[in-house]
Every structure is written in C-alpha cells, then in structure tokens.
C-alpha cells in the first residue's frame, strides 16, 4: 500500500489517518469465492467446512468425503464456507461542474481525495477496488482488483483525471453497470447535476442487479448558499459559451428553492431505492465526514 507521502498530493494525510482503521463494509453478503472480510453465500472449496450432502449424479468425484464413505459405506460430498472479495467500484464524476470551488476546495479535488481514501480503504481490507471516471462519456475504467499494486494504477488514473465536459451521469453509470460482472458496491462521487429521475432509474437498475450503491453527494457551499452580490456574469463550466448576466441577489430565492427541491428529490429517491445518500459539502472536513459515515454504516451492517 503506497505510503501516505505518495498520495499527499491528492489527499490530506490527516484525512487518511482518520479512516485508516475503519472498514468499508457492504450491506449485502456477496456470493462467490470468499476471500477477504466479506462472507459469501457461495458454498464451494475453501478452508472452512460447512456441511455434508449426499452425492448426486453430476457432483465432482473429488468432492466426495472418503472418510465418511469408509464409515458409512455411502457417498457424501463436503461443502465449505467461502469468503469473497468486496468488488468496489468508485465512480468519479469528472464533468465540468465538478471544477467549481471558491472558498472551499474544488469539488473534483474533494471527490478525488475521497476516491483515494475509499480505494485505499477497500484495498487495505483485502477487497477489490476499481475506478471509473465519467463525464459525458466513460473516460476511464479500471476493473476492481485486490492486488496490492492495484492502488498504484488507481492513483495514477486519479492523478491524471481532470474535470471537463458535460454531465452524463446516468448514461455512464449504465455503462459501468454493464462492466460489473459480479455483485459489488458502486460508490458514486458526484454533484449529480443530472436529471434526478433518470439517475434514480439507473440506481434502481443497479440495485436490481444486486449491487450496493453509495452516493457521496458533493456540493460546494456557495452552491448551497448562493450569497453573491453585484451584477455578475455566470459562465457555465460545462457548456462552452453559456453564460448568464444577472444580479445574483435578485434570483437567490428561486435558485435556493430549486436546489432545495433537487436535494430533497435526490435524497428521497436514494432512500426509496436503498441507496446510501451521503451529503459531502466541500467545506466539511473530509476525514471526519467519511469516518462518521463509515462508523454509521458499519453499525448498520452488523445489526443486519
């Protein structure tokens, strides 16, 4: 696992420390070959014996427990409990809107730091971590791996990513979904400046496939307060040439109402679909926010 110095350019070391000892647990038990900390429902060859079952035509001969045959003169096969790797795919929104940041770190930088934290956490707990960078297209896709060197690949991709282009979150999530062969956890780091209903449909598709979804909703504090004054020109970070000349104070009320509606709608849809909605304003300490969330999530998962 790369030392904190190698990721210092991407993340505050203090934030790393705060989440170092925490785990990112999936709320679902993943079937398949067990390795790492997640128990799979798949019963296959592994170190831990689970139970015997009568031999039926088609079972593999090598699975027959000969000791039991010797004692009972009947054919039985052994079943074992497998521990599977958590397939975590971090989807990083690199659209133009993520470039915004005034008095707090730009949303993309914040999201990228969060991606670093999360992927490091996943790999540290021997789960598989992957990365998808999206804007108006699936710009980069690194399938989840659990090898120690995989973090370097992720870091490298994160370093090279920069926000640009328009948001096409829902469509790109679908593309990502098609690449996810095994059930896992999709962590979306985005401001979600896309159509909420379209996004919700995709979330539903993801959930139907058996994946977990965590949405880290990243927004700048200025986008939540809109405390601008004076005649201003607002230039769109995604569409080139789009601009609005206005007096912010005059539109503040309606703007905030629109944002409030958006947040409420997004949160409500996430809740309905069983997705975790984690608000991450960029003026909030990343480590504290993530730690707070992970603790809450861990507590919730263990209860189940």
């Amino acid at each position, binding site marked *: 696992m790369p030392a904190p110095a190698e990721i210092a350019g991407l993340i505050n070391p203090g934030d790393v420390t705060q989440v170092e000892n925490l785990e990112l647990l999936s709320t679902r038990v993943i079937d398949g070959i067990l390795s790492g900390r997640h128990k799979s429902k798949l019963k296959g060859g592994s170190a831990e014996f689970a139970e015997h079952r009568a031999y039926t035509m088609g079972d593999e001969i090598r699975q027959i427990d000969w000791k039991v045959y010797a004692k009972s003169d009947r054919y039985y096969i052994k079943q074992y409990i497998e521990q599977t790797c958590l397939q975590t795919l971090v989807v990083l929104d690199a659209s*133009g*809107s*993520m*470039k*915004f940041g005034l008095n707090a770190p730009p*949303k993309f930088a914040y999201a990228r730091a969060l991606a670093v934290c999360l992927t490091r956490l996943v790999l540290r707990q021997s789960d598989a971590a992957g990365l998808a960078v999206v804007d108006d297209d699936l710009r980069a896709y690194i399938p989840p791996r659990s090898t120690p060197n995989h973090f370097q690949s992720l870091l490298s991709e994160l370093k090279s990513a920069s926000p640009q282009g328009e948001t096409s979150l829902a469509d790109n999530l679908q593309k990502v979904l098609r690449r996810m062969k095994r059930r896992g956890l999709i962590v979306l780091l985005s*401001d979600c*400046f896309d159509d909420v209903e379209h996004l919700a449909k995709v979330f539903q598709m993801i959930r139907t496939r058996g994946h977990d979804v965590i949405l880290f*909703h990243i*927004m*700048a504090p200025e*986008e*939540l*307060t*809109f*405390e*601008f*004054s*004076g*005649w*201003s*020109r*607002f*230039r*769109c*970070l*995604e*569409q080139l040439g*789009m601009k*609005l*000349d*206005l*007096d912010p*104070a*005059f*539109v*503040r*009320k*309606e*703007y*905030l*109402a*629109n*944002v*409030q509606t*958006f*947040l409420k709608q997004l*949160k409500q849809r996430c809740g309905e679909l069983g997705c975790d*909605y*984690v*608000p*991450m*304003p960029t003026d909030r300490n990343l480590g504290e926010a993530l730690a707070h*969330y992970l603790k809450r999530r861990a507590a919730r998962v263990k209860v189940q």
Partner: protein
Amino acid sequence: MSFLSPIFLLGLPLVAIPIGIHLLNRRQQKVLNWGAMQFLAPASTRRRRLWKMSDLLLLLLRILAILFIVGALSRPLLPVTWLGHSGPRSVVLVIDPSLSMAANEEGEILFDRMLDKMDGLLEELSPSDTLQVIIAGDNPVWMQELPVEANPSEIRRIRSQIRQLEPTLGGANLTAAIHRVLDTPEDKEKMIRIINVLSDGQSVGWAMNDATPWAEINRLVEAQERPTLINLDFVDQAVSEQANLSVDELRTVRTVTAINQPVTVEALVHNRGTKATAASVLHWYSEDESLGISSIPPLAPGSLMTVSVTHTFDATGHFDLWCEIDIRDVLDEDNEAHLIFTITDSLPVLIVDGSSQADPLNTDVGYLLASLGFQEEGSGASPTWQSGFLPKLVSTSELAQETLESYRCIILANPHRLSRSVSDKLQSYVQNGGGLWVSLGDAITPSEFNETWYRDGVGLSPLPLITTIGDPDNREAFKHLQPPNESHPATQLLADLQRLDIDRVQVFRRHQFDELQALETSVLLRIDHGDALAVEQGIGRGRAIFLATPLGLTWSNFPVCQSYVAMVHEWIWYLAAPSFPRHNLALGEAILLDASMTAAQGELSIQLPNDTTLDINRQENSPKQVFRFTKTQEPGTYTVTSAANGQRSPFVVIRDPNESTLAKLDAAALSKISQMPGFQIGGRNLSVPSDLELEIPTTPIANSLLVTLLALVVGELVLAAWCTYQRNPKIAAVTMEG
C-alpha cells in the same frame, strides 16, 4: 415654450450622472465560473426580466427626477394648446331681441331658431374659454357684469337665462352693441376675442348710412392687442316675400284733456312687407271697452293709410286707448298700438290782468275769460266754466302772493314791467314744468320787456323786442297771419283753414321781435311778410309763449275770429301739458308718477312689458314724493300699481315703427361689412380662420413639474426599497442533510 429662468437649463447635463452610474455598475460585473447552471437558468429567466425592468425603471425615474428639477427651476411657460386645450378664447354672444326676431315662419319664430344656433355655439365652448352675453336692444345691456368661465354649470345657467328671453317690441342697435363689446377691456390671457352676433340680418339696427359708428368700430378693432373676430351669424329665413301690416303710430292733438271733451285718434297703418296684404279690420279699444272698428283695404307693399276714431272720456284718470289689426301676418306684434290719455276734470289756470279796469270783462281779459267758457249765473252765484278750465283772475300786484305751482298755466295779459322777484318766481315756475303765456300790449315798452323777459338771452323770452309797429286806431292798415305750422301741437288745429280762420286775423299794431338774436326760435304765428308774432321757448320742463299783441281788440281783431277760442284752448293745453307726467314715453324716457300715486301710502309695483313685476322702494319721508323709473329700454306698456288703494297708472313706451320693416342687409351692405377688419359673415360657429395669426398664451407649469417631481421621488424610493427587499429576502441557505 419659453423659460423665466433659463440659466437653470445648464443643469440638464446632470442627467448623465444616473446614466453613468448605471453603465458603470454594468461594467463592473464579476465573472463567475459556475457549475449549477441547471438551478440558475430557470430562476434567472423570469427574475432577470424583472430585474432589468426594475433597474431600467429606476434609471428612468432618476433621469426624470433630474429633468423635472431642472425644468421646475427654469420655470417654463407652456403654450396652452400644448396641454390639449383649444386655446383660451374670450367669447361674447350678441343677442338680437328686436321685434323683427318675432317674425314667424311655418310656426317657428326667428328668435327660437336663433336660440338653437346659440345652443350649438355653447356646445363648442371649452372650460378654458370665457363667455359673456350682451342683449343688443336699443340700448345694449350686458347679461352679466363680468365674463364667466365656460364650465358646464355656468353654460347651463346662461343657456337657461337666454332661453327665458323673448323678442321685444323694440329695435336692435347692433353697431352700438359691438362697440360696447369692443370698448370693454380685453382679457390678455385669451388668445382671441370672438364676438358672435346672432341676428336676423335686418338692415335696421346696422346704421349702414351712418359712417360714424363704423369708423369707431374699425378704430377699436385696430386698437385691440389680441385678435378680434366679429362673426355675423344670421338666422336664415326661407320665405323671401312676406306681407306685414303694422300700426306705425297713434296720433292725436294732445293726450291730456278734460273730461267729456272729444278726442280724435288716428292710426297710421303701413304695409312694411314685400307682398300685398289682404283686407282686414282694425279694432279700437279704450281699456277693455270696444270703441268700434275701422276697415283696412288691401295695401300694396309700402303703402300707408290712416284710420281714426273719436272718443269722449267720461271719467277722470289715465286711459289706454289702443287698437289692433285683426290679421295674421309674418309679424303679429306690430299689429297693435297704444296711447295713454290723461283725463282731468279741471285745469287750474292763473290769469294775471295787467289792466287797471275794475271789471275784467271790459278789458282784454274779458275776451280771454269768455273763450274759457265763463258763464255768470247771477248775482251772488259763483261763475261756472264750461271748458274744463278753472281760471283764477288776479292783478299784477297780487301775483307775488300766489302759489304758482297750483296752476297748470299762467297767462299774463298785457303785463306791466314786473319786479325782479316776480320775474324770477315765474322763471322758476316754468323751469319746474309750468306753462306761461305772456300777451304783450301797451303796458310795457320794448326796453322794459327786454329787461324783464329777455335778460340778454337768459330770460323766459327767446327774443328781445326791437320796437312797436302799427297804429291801433288805423283799422285800414293791418297785417294778416301766415297759416301756422300744422305739425306743431300748439298750432295743428289752427292750421286747419277749412274749419278755422286764422288767415283772417287782422293785426293793427304789434311789438316786433328781433329774430336775428336767435336763429332757431320756435315761431307759432307769423305776420304775412314773415315777422314773428308769437314765439315760444322751452325752459327746464316748462314752456313759455310770448304773443306780441294783446288778447283784446285793441291791437287786433283776434277775439272776434273763430281761431281765437281754439288758440286759447290749444295754447293753454299745450302750456299745461309739461306739468302733467308723461304717459306716452320715448325709449329710455323716465316714468314719473304724479302726486296722487306718490302720496298714497304702501308699496308700489311696476309691471314691465315682459310681464315681470318689480316692487319699488319709495322714500316715505321724502317731501316731494317724486318717483322716477328709468328702466324703460323696452317698448310696450308699463303699469304702476299702488298696493294701498289698487290705483293703476299706465304708461306706454312707443316702439320704433321702422323695426317692422323686415328688409335684410343687401349684398352691397354685406360685402361692405365683410371687408371691414375683423368681420366675417356666416363663419362656422366659434372656429378661428386659419389665416388669423394668434399669440397663444402660455401658462407656467413649474408647480406641476414640482408635483410630478415629488411623485417621481416617492416612486423611486418605493421602487428602490422594493428592489432592496428583492435582493435581500430573508431566505435561509440550503443545508445538505444525510
């Protein structure tokens, strides 16, 4: 537009300040790269439009505020037409109320058509105009003292007042009315004075043959500071040929006479129309009593005829003897005429005998007394008089003690030289309305006469005496008299040579008047070769006659001629007439009441020709109790009634018969009038000709600008407050909640 303080206009460039601030604010816009456009765009679409509107409106308000401050300080004067007004006009309506306006045509009189035109004119008035109305009678009179604003309530009131008018029996002096209007001060705040004359265009009343009033009108028009338009708006008359019989006048020798004395009245009937009249009948009345009829044959246009009636009044008092033609023509109001007679039972006459004879019957006075109807009934009985006269005989010495006002006439028969005091007393008597007849004989010399009676032209005699001519003893040498003037009321009867014999009078001796001393002396009798024998003079209200020969047979045979009695009677009535209040008046002549009316207690009222009644306030404690009523500008009958005893006293103001001539102004007259400065004929109501240069008056608008400025400032403050509120709504920021 002009400005009273134009220096403040230098502040106009200050308008650039708010514009500059506005542009500066726009330039200093911040640029923000923004990601959440999807929340901003919908909000900005509507709000941006609103902001732009409010921002521009604030800018506009601030610009206007500066403009209005600068404007108000510079005190502009705006032409009133810029404010949507037609331009203030001073409008005068000249209403023709004359007799000819009562001409009817197809059931409608011209006056009513004129009222319809008036309605149209009143509707053209605007509140910035002023209106005044003058009634153009024989003596034009303003309906209001001052012009009134032409607001709806005043127009309604004036319309109502005018509609209560009716045509009178009088004429219309339209040139005098126009002159009076032009002579009133102009309203400098009005851009034009429009004088609209509403008339029938009758030529009478326009004085086309008299250049003086027109010259004066032209002078006044030229002298006006503001343009003046005189529009002659004539009521059209469709029928051109019309017949119109008119009783032009009633004539009689005298209207004051004695009871039971026959009076003859002549009616002069005239066809003043342009078409021949049918045969008709004239009815005579004394008050309500019918006196008979006179036939009037068909009359050609312009023809006159005279019909008469003789009547004896058997009671004393005042009587209205009138006539009416029974015919319906274009103008019915002139088919009637009135004459008021004053009937008295006795006429007190003072006869001063200058002779020294004890028995007056043996003197010149004797013939005079006989002519007055003296009848001696026997010794001890009072003499009676048959003529209605009540003479009293005194000597010259007794004259000083007499109260002269008790007598209607004083006759001095062959007087001696009188003292100054008596002479002054007689002068005063004549001036107060008394009649004096001085018949000169041998008791006075020419020089004494001149000293007593002529007094270098200030005495009672109009002429001095030069000498005495003739020999009374030589009856072969005499002079006859010329036939006297038949139009003079004192000699009208004497001029009738068929009934009387004035031409047979023989004068043997006479005093000679010096006629060169006065060129226009009224001569009642002349000698054959032209010397005046009897002269008269009006002094004050009275008259004096001087006969250059005595009343007896000493110097002439007058007493034995038929004319003598007629002369005595006619001259006494003639001299006595001024002492009676006149009841047949000229236009404008004052009504004077006699003692019987004024002595009565209680209130008096007077009924006017338009049937209105006025109560008269009298000075109860006035020693002379003289009543005068001077508002006799309208022809017709006036009746004064005493509330105490119901006594009625009629008066008639004689109308001008020429008003019955309905001939219109001819083309030449119309052309002449239309060429005069300021005149136009038949212009379209109150419209101003386009070629007339008008100085549009201005009105200061600084106060209006200040009021508007106040509104602008308030508006700016309110809008700015609203914008501030819009910019700082109490909205909490959005929080992200997990």
